[in-house]
């Protein structure tokens, strides 16, 4: 969600950019110049480990979009499938423990639930 802001700064400074992202909706909302959408889990924008073919397909899609785009808002989505099922891939991209901000949010949620579950003071 934050990299589109960085892309805007760099493009505005005169460097053509292309953003390869699993969240292309937000690249569009940020009004980026060129976006390649990839149907891949977080952390692996160019494809699975060791899959040189997928990496090349994504890279070539980005290069081709740079060549063909004639104005801002250009977007191409890559037609590749992740090699494992969604449930497995969803678990696999997650960090081994919740990030600090997620842990803080979960702790607050649990505290609110505990408070709701307690009977009111008499």
């Amino acid at each position, binding site marked *: 969600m934050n990299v589109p802001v960085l892309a805007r700064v760099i493009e505005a400074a005169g460097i053509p950019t292309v953003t390869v992202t699993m*969240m292309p909706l937000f690249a569009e909302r940020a009004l980026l110049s060129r976006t390649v959408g990839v149907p891949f889990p977080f952390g692996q924008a*160019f494809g699975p480990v060791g899959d040189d073919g997928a990496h090349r397909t994504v890279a070539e899609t980005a290069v081709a979009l740079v060549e063909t785009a004639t104005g801002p808002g250009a977007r191409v989505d890559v037609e590749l499938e992740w090699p494992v099922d969604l449930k497995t891939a969803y678990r696999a991209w997650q960090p081994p423990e919740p990030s600090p901000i997620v842990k803080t949010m979960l702790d607050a949620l649990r505290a609110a639930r505990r408070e709701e579950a307690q009977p009111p003071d008499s």
Partner: protein
Amino acid sequence: MVVDSFRYLPRSFVPLYEQRTYDFDAPVWTPLDRPVREATFGLLTSAGVYLRDRQEPFDLERERAEPTWGDPSLRVIPADATESDVDVAHLHINTKPIRRDLDVALPLRTFRRLAEDGVIGALASEHYSVMGFQEPGLEVWVNETGPEIAARCHNADIDVLVLAPA
């Protein structure tokens, strides 16, 4: 195929992200002034990649102490870096795949082959790594890190920058 931007998000996060917008009212656009087969390409990842023996990792200890803060600094990665040269500091993704194959996030090997095959002009001599979790305002990225990357791109004769959010 239209990529579903929420496919891999935890369901409880989806309503938060669906509401997220930006305040920009105009697009950005810089045309490329030459064919891609003559252009030098640079790469940027937000996966928190850094050179293990030559650079400080992104500051995860401060993020653990201040959960809304993210290290906004920049690491410059040379074109010949491989998995054996780098490590990954990022608390929001599983970093093991990147340690096994740097190309999943920073595809230096792939773009080098594109240059060797004449698809692009050249792979730049330097590339860029940031850590994607940032403070909501992104002030340092907008006012310092982004301009620093742009200046480095100009100095390194980079014609196109490929950004890959983690």
